[in-house]
């Protein structure tokens, strides 16, 4: 599997060249949010707000009212926790075209509870007018700007930074409201988003080898939620659906799937894996994923529970799995 280093840096610069209306607003986390080179390339379009997120969101609203498209770049927690009233009243209510690019989703950072955005999707999903997307690999980081460009309202982007795996081919960019079908099987459907997808791909390979038919769907659009791929995947699962998310299980992907199922009267069980009503703490990503049951092993255990079988898959089996970028099975079928 290819690891891509800081794909947002150059991609965002190139993307912005032909879009003079695009501005970047930063609250003292410019390099941390991979827009240092952007600032140096377009200094006249870079607005430094200092550590003052409430004001920064208001400024973004004012700029958007004047026809600019501000891309707020900061850690996700400082967007939705620190400045929620400003986010809701100054930006979301008037449906302004502001891009809120939130870094450090869930437990990807050792920065601890203050830096870990674990309930952002829940809050953003509950915010009227807000579109909510999440990047899951380098290809999605590179294509999310195009995917949301024509949304004439606020968009929250749950963003990745640093070394990012390429799970999806470059020629299959993110498309708003379009899930990816990564594997097919009739026993269990696994639905994941963000960094949980890589873990689930690992688990799906092992599960398949153990004879369990797994349909795996990757979601990149939390709101609006639901498409044909998701619908088919949920309905075909013989034993039920498992969601795995780098987020609390309240209000995020697991909740969205549960709502989808209950709204349509689909009679299937939904097991939600993620943070269970808890904050995390400062430690490495692999350590925290294991501690809180967000990893491939936790997923195989959930499949055992759902199918009432013992598969005998352990950590070493999962660690040996080599992942390659996977074409969406759905797209192959459509062609």
């Amino acid at each position, binding site marked *: 599997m290819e690891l891509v280093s800081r794909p947002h840096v150059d991609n965002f610069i190139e993307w912005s060249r032909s879009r003079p209306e695009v501005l970047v607003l930063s609250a003292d986390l410019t390099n941390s949010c991979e827009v240092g080179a952007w600032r140096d390339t377009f200094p006249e379009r870079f*607005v430094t707000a200092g550590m*003052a997120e409430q*004001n920064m969101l*208001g400024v*973004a609203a004012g700029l958007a009212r004047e026809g*600019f498209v501000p891309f707020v770049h900061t850690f996700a927690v400082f967007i939705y926790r620190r400045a929620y009233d*400003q986010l809701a009243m100054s930006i979301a*209510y008037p449906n302004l075209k502001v891009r809120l690019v939130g870094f450090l989703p869930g437990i990807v950072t050792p920065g601890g509870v203050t830096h870990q955005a674990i309930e952002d999707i829940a809050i953003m999903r509950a915010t009227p007018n807000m579109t909510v997307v999440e990047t899951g690999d380098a290809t999605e980081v590179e294509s999310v700007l195009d995917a949301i460009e024509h949304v004439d*309202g606020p968009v929250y982007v749950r963003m990745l930074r640093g070394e990012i795996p390429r799970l999806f081919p470059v020629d299959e960019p993110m498309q708003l409201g379009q899930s990816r079908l990564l594997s097919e099987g009739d026993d269990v459907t696994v639905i994941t988003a963000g960094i949980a997808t890589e873990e689930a791909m690992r688990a799906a390979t092992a599960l398949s080898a153990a004879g369990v038919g797994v349909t795996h769907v990757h979601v990149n659009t939390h709101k609006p939620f639901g498409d044909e791929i998701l619908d088919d995947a949920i309905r075909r699962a013989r034993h039920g659906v498992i969601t795995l998310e780098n987020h609390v299980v309240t209000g995020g992907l697991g909740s969205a799937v549960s709502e989808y199922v209950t709204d349509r009267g689909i009679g299937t069980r939904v097991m939600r894996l993620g943070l269970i009503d808890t904050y995390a703490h400062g430690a490495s990503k692999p350590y925290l994923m294991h501690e809180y049951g967000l990893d491939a092993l936790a997923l195989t255990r959930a499949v055992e529970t759902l199918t009432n079988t013992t598969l005998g898959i352990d950590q070493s089996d999962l660690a040996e799995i080599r992942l390659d970028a996977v074409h969406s099975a759905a797209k192959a079928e459509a062609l």
Partner: protein
Amino acid sequence: MTTIPQGDRRISAETNDLSRLEAIASRIRNRVFEHVLANDGGYLSQAMSSADIFAALYGTVLKLGPVTGDTLPGDFSGVPGPANPHYRSGGRFNGERSAEGDVFLFSPAHYALVLYAALIEVGRLDSAALGEFNVDGSTMEMIGAEHSPGVETTTGSLAQALSQACGIALARKMRAESGRTWVFMSDGEFQEGQTWEALAFASFHGLSGLRAVVDANGQQCDGPMVDVCNVEPLKQRIEAFGCRAVEVDGHDIAALVSAMNDPVEVPLVVVARTNPAHTLPVSKEHAPGHYLRFKSPDERARYEAFYTDRMVTI
């Protein structure tokens, strides 16, 4: 002791005559007063403190285009959003935008009745609109919303307008527009940290087109601001943030106009010292509170007498 500069009594022909502005202020107060009596309560003290500020702003200082469309408030047509193509902003009552013209943001949304009265007095809003005040399904909401006449941002959660004005002023600076960006504020908003974030931002980014006018009536929900959480000395605090603060008697319209038109090249805050009982026959200490509710038939009768007296005087 702060000195309060006296306004130029020989207010020039260009800035309109003082008596006309004073008449606007007086009629704003009367309209609000009449309405508070008819509705058995309301935001009376805000009208008493700020009517002169609104008269100065809408009567002469603001450079606004004519109202776009008719001057009726119209019914509530839904909240903004992708599913609502019929949404209409209350900003249309402040007229068509131009590069040379001004933008006006209205921050303390509970002053809505005063704003509506001001719009009526300068011919931007039909006087029949007041009949729809606080009526279900009307845009004439008690706490001004984005669809309410004269309002174009959501500011009922206080202290959010100044930051939005910073964004607008920054955009206008980038486009080299000469028009100014105004915010009407209340002094209570200086208890919110966001106000100070915005002042630091405005000063740092050199937003010389930004102008805030503050109704410093010293009063908030829980009582006098000095007892709730003092924000004084406002002028010194604002200037410490790199903005220019001009303190004036908020009931001296000539002084207000000249302070608002200060040619200063940094963000300007006009601190208008006002009395929430101005023109009422009670002392400042016995001014009607944040929201006037008649506690007894006697109190109501007293206010009715105040009203009758002032109408006779006029």
